């Protein structure tokens, strides 16, 4: 029941993030375990900055989180988090917030043929 703009933008970001083979590869590897950005940069024929950019796209889509440990930046998949009961309840909350907003709007309308 969530089909609002914000939700659509989230979906767009998600599909944009997954539309690139390198990013899909990074995500799959992150799902298998923690990764450091420098290790990723060694494995792909691209600069550290380019890898950082890919990770940032995945991060904005809510697919990975980044964490600093000493001099290393670690990438971790957040797909399990996304699937958690907590997250599901957050989505339901968003549905009900919108629903109650509309409820209030309909309620605030002047009644047809009502008393002036």
């Amino acid at each position, binding site marked *: *029941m*969530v*089909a*609002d703009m914000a*939700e*659509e933008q*989230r*979906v767009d970001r*998600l*599909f944009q993030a*997954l539309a690139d083979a390198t990013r*899909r590869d990074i*995500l*799959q590897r992150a*799902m298998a375990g923690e990764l450091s950005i420098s290790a990723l940069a060694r494995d792909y024929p691209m600069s550290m900055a380019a890898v950082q950019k890919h990770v940032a796209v995945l991060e904005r889509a809510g697919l990975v989180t980044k964490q600093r440990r000493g001099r290393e930046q670690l990438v971790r998949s957040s*797909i399990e988090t*996304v*699937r958690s*009961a*907590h997250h*599901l*309840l*957050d*989505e*339901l*909350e968003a*549905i*009900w*917030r*919108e*629903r*109650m*907003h*509309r*409820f*209030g*709007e*309909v*309620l*605030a309308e002047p*009644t047809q043929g009502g008393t002036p």
Partner: protein
Amino acid sequence: MSMTSIEKDVDALSMVVTCEFDAPVDAVWELWADPRKLERWWGPPTYPATVVDHDLVAGGRVSYYMTGPEGDQHGGWWRVVAVDAPHSFEIEDGFADEDGNENPDLPTTTMRVTIEAKPEGGTRMVTSSTFPSREAMEQMLEMGLEEGLSAAIGQIDAILAPG
């Protein structure tokens, strides 16, 4: 309208939404009891609801469908458990198949609504939803009615599957 609280209980898989309205109890009740009013707020603007049957009495049934941007239709129904108009009712909220019949394979949500006058004026409405299991809640969100991110998340495994 002011939303005074949303309490989510991850262990009990429940959510309680409390709202206050500057309107009398009867007017708030009407938004559930009048199908033409109900369909104006139940579905989002992109998935408007059309209420087909509406019998808000104990043992009664409400059925509706929501129409998506592609003309896709998603049916739902309420089995009315108890009603004390205009103050409370309890329903089971479930999914329908393509013919509008109850789909027993899909989970139902129990929802209890109470509407009461506040001593200082206005009305307080409390909506409590309880899901049978985490799997049920997940399934519910991934169903047709819940387009968007959940559906996309559901496709991630397929997208990531090694070709």
